C-alpha cells in the first residue's frame, strides 16, 4: 500500500515533461529492470532554476521522480547533492520496502544530471 502523498504525486505529477534547452540531463535505469528515469535540468549561476522528468516505471518510480523535482528545484547544486538516497522516500511519507530502490533511482538520476552539467561546463 502506498501513502496518500505517493498517490498524489503519481496521479498529479509535478514538473513532468521535457526542457528543450536543458543545461544537463541525467538518465538512469533500463527497460529490462522496468524503470527508466530521465531528468532535465536548467541551471543558472549554480542554482537549479528548472527541473523536469520523464519516467517509465511503477507508481513509486513516477512518484519519487515527481517528489525529487520538487525537492531539487531552487536548490544550489551543492545543496541538491546533499539529498540522500532515501530522503525522497522519507519526504513521501515512506515507501514499501521493495520500492525503496525507486528512491535510490531518483537520487541517482539527479546525481547523473549534475555530473552531466559539470562535464558540460568544465
Amino acid at each position: 500500500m502506498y501513502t496518500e502523498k505517493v498517490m498524489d504525486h503519481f496521479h498529479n505529477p509535478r514538473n513532468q515533461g521535457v526542457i528543450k534547452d536543458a543545461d544537463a540531463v541525467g538518465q538512469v535505469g533500463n527497460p529490462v529492470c522496468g524503470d527508466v528515469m530521465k531528468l532535465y535540468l536548467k541551471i543558472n549561476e549554480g542554482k537549479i532554476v528548472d527541473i523536469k522528468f520523464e519516467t517509465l516505471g511503477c507508481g513509486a518510480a513516477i512518484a519519487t521522480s515527481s517528489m525529487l523535482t520538487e525537492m531539487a528545484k531552487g536548490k544550489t547544486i551543492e545543496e541538491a547533492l546533499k539529498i540522500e538516497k532515501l530522503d525522497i522516500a522519507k519526504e513521501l511519507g515512506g515507501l514499501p520496502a521493495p520500492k525503496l530502490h525507486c528512491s535510490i533511482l531518483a537520487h541517482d538520476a539527479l546525481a547523473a544530471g549534475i555530473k552531466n552539467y559539470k562535464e558540460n561546463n568544465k
Partner: protein
Amino acid sequence: MAKQKSFYLDNAATTPVDPRVLQAMAPYFNEAFGNASSLHGKGNEAMVAVEASRAKIASFLGCSSENVYFTSGATESDNWAILGLTRAILRDNSGFKPHIIISAVEHEAVIEPVRRLVKDGLAESTYLKVDKNGLVSPEDLKKSIKANTVLVSVMLANNEIGSIQPLTKLAQVIAEANSSRKRRILFHTDATQAPAYVECNVKKLGVDLMSLSAHKIYGPKGVGALYVGSGIKLEPLVYGGGQQQGARSGTYNVAEIVGFGKAVEIVSDKKERSEDIKRIKELRDYLVKQVLVKVPRSSLNGSLKDRLPNNASFIFPGVEGESVVLMLSRHGICASTGSACSSGSLEPSHVLLAIGVPIEHAHGSLRLTLGRFTKKSDIEALLKHLPSTIEKLRQMSPLKN
C-alpha cells in the same frame, strides 16, 4: 473510505461470494455452530453439513467422498500434495532421491515447495517448458521421466494467461510409463482456476491428486480441498486432533466448507454453467477485440484457443503494469499485472517469460479476468479509460518508441 463505483475485472484473483453461497453459509455461524467432531446434537448437525458438502465436491470430481479432504485453500493443497507425497516416500525409502516434474508456468504454491525440497537436497526437479501459448507438450513430459520420478504436477488452467493444459494426454504418457514401473508416478494438478469453466472429473482427466479452492468459484476465502486417489499415502502437513482420518487435523471450518459445497453445486449445474460460459466468452472476445483496436501496439498473450473463457492478458510495450493498474483503479477499474513491481520481486511474471515475452515487455502486462457477475458496463468502463491511460503513461516515458 468513500464508496466509488467499481468495475471488477480481476476474477482470477478472487471472486465475490455468490448470494446463494452466503445464504447457505449463514446458519453455520451462530445457529448450527457446533464443532463437527463433538458427539452431541450441535456437533452432529455440523458434521452432517460437512459431509453433505464433501459429497457435492466428490460428485463434481467423479470420485468418492473419502477421496476429498478439506484444507485452508489451494496453497495448502498444493503444498500437501508435493511435500506430503515426498515425505511419505522418503520415510519408507532412505537414501532414495525422488524426482518431481512440474511445468514452467505453475503457481508459486507448486513451485516453492518443490524448490524447497530441492534446496534441502531431498528431491530433484525438472521444469517442463511451454510453447508461446503456455502449453506443455506430452513428448517433453515423456523425455523428462526418469527412473526416480515420483510426481508430475501440471496445472489444469493457468492463472495468468488462462491456458488449459492437455492433461488427458499427459496422463496417457504417465500411464504408459507406469505400465513398466514398480512405483507409480503420480499425477497432480492445481485446478484452482478451472472448476467454473473446465471439466474437472478426475477419472476423465486421469489425475491422482487435484487441488481446489473455493474463493475462485464464488465461495469464501480460506477453504479448499485436495482430491487424493484411493491407496495414495500422503504424510500429513498439519498434525493435531486427528480430524479427516488423521490426514489433515484442525477443527472443521464448517460455514466455509458449506459455502464451498454450495459454490461447487452451482458450478455443477449444467444449464447455468453453459449459459455463464457462453456469456462470459462473448464479453471476453469483445473485450479482446476492442482493446487490440483501441490501444496502439497492444498484443494478447497466448491464443484464444485452449484458454479459459474469462481470461484476457495483454502486453502494452512502453508502460509499466503497476502504473496502469493504479491509474485504472482511480476510475474504479480493478485489474492486475504480472509486472515485477507488482510482486515485490525484481523479475516480472515467470509465466510471461516462459511463453517468450521479452522481459522489457513483460513489465507492461495487464490481466483482465471476467466472471459470473461481470456486466457489459464493466467492459465499457475499461474500454473508455484504458486507451487514454496507456497514452498518458507512454507520454510520460523517456522512451517514446
